[in-house]
């Protein structure tokens, strides 16, 4: 009796939450896939016809936005590695007793709503805002110069919003490095540069991978930054999907685009995860 209870226990514990995830996370993916293969409209309803041509049409119509989003996502992740690595390195090796305080400061933007943060950014970047106005007055920038509406503004916004997601995983990886390993390299006459290249950087790579995972996916599927900071030449696939779902109610095309985007991103995610082990990623993600 007791043994039956014990073998049943994990299932009973997982059941409620597992069902919730099944019904509201897994099943929707199936409905979305099915909807992408249906024809019809919002008024007369949709019929499943297996019309896979929707994918071909949607992707050929919006390949510019799709590729642009992946490129913006990739640039964002690369810029983030360069920006975040020295910070993570300094906090991990020189942060001393104040490590937590520094990490907390890095996390401060998360205490402000994502949309509000991006709007504050827009205020900073406007043509005559606090950043550009003084530079134009001083003659450092031409008076017609503008940032809003350019790819630079969108990518800057993405970099700003996802920076903590890159600092944290790299920090976690660097923090785990045994200082004696680095000392051993130095004792064996490795220059600081060589010790960094041959010892520290390879050990930090899992953190960099996790950081890329946690920034590339949200950045390339984002529509808030491109909507608030971008212009007509910076439209990202997220904006297309969002407007097709919420404004024009073109569900089959929107579903096809969302599914295609997820397929591209998930293939990337799972190949990363296999190289890295999901446990590590989850641990980092939970922080």
């Amino acid at each position, binding site marked *: 009796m007791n043994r039956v*209870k014990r*073998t049943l226990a*994990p*299932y*009973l*514990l*997982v059941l*409620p*939450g*597992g069902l*919730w*995830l*099944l019904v*509201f*996370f*897994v099943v*929707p*993916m199936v*409905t*979305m896939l099915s*909807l992408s293969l249906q024809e019809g409209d919002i008024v007369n309803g949709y019929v499943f016809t297996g019309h896979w041509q929707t994918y071909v049409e949607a992707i050929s119509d919006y390949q510019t936005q799709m590729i642009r989003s992946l490129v913006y996502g990739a640039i964002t992740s690369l810029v983030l590695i360069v920006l975040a690595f020295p*910070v993570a390195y*300094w906090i991990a090796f020189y942060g001393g007793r104040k490590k*937590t305080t*520094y990490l907390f*400061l890095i996390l*401060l*933007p*998360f*205490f*402000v*709503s*994502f*949309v*509000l943060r991006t709007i*504050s950014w827009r*205020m*900073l970047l406007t043509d005559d*805002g*606090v950043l550009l106005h003084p530079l134009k007055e001083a003659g450092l920038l031409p008076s017609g110069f503008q940032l809003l509406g350019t790819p630079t503004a969108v990518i800057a916004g993405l970099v*700003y919003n996802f920076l903590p997601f890159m600092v944290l995983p790299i920090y976690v990886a660097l923090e785990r490095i045994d200082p004696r390993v680095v000392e051993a390299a130095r004792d064996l*006459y490795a220059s*600081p540069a060589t010790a960094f290249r041959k010892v520290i950087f390879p050990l930090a790579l899992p953190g960099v991978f996790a950081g890329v*995972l946690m920034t590339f*996916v*949200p950045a*390339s599927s984002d*529509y808030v930054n491109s909507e608030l900071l971008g212009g007509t030449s910076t439209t990202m696939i997220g904006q297309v999907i*969002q407007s097709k*779902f919420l404004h024009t109610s073109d*569900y089959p095309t929107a*579903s096809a685009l*969302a599914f295609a985007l997820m397929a591209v*991103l*998930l293939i990337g*995610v799972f190949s990363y995860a296999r190289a890295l082990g*999901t446990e590590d990623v*989850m*641990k980092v993600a*939970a922080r």
Partner: protein
Amino acid sequence: MTQTLTPAPATQATPSRRRFRIGGARMMHIYTWLLIAWLVLPILVMILFGFNDPQGRYNQTWQGFTLKWYGELFALPDLTDALIASLAVAVVSSLISAALGTGIGYALGRYRFRGAGATNLVMFAAISSPELVMGSSLLTLFVSMGVGLGGVTLTIAHVMFSIAFVATVVRARVVTLDRAMEEAAADLGATAWTTWWKVTFPILLPAIFSGIMLAFALSIDDFVITNFTAGNVQTFPLWIWGSTRVGLPPQVNVMGTLIFVVGVLIAVVANLRSRPRKQQD
């Protein structure tokens, strides 16, 4: 042979290299502070413009200091309703996801069972899937089932994306749990139920509490999934999104400032309270 030769240049090079290292560290220190300043700059702008006294409807240029928006914080009924809706959804969804997530986290941390791998996989997918896809696919589910969007669908969505985070936090604590405590309780004749409530649950409580806080923070800040599942219900981020074009009233900045201050205070207090425990680890 080479080994006997190398030490000489190495020792010669050491002083300059050491200086380089210290210089590098100092530069990284300055750089870290610059980056923190960059991260904080938009927050300061938000706080500052809550004290601005704009003449028109656009709160974009500094026109004088005032405290009146703090006094008229709830003067815009729509905005106040949106904030209340955000808080209500955050409270309900964080409590539900805490209950569901604790079950999963405890089972995964404590038992080996068939299906654990699949559960892990689904949780990993739920954490790493793009919000855009989770939100839009939920929309397709609700639309094809003919369910009207609103507060209920919104709460369902928020519970969905929070469960995996709560479960991960709780599992991390369960893994480090000393099983001897539970065994001792069982040896002393406690039933499984009593053991859970008198021993396990109190030990897990801090982890469950951080799970609730995390779920609350995720919920109150969420925009993308909310955008797809809220229907006509306005939450704080949705209201801001909808009003950007017509100009944001300074009350938004004040509410943002208050949420920021309260959030930071709670985080600092929680961190100070958990400190002695951390040192033991």
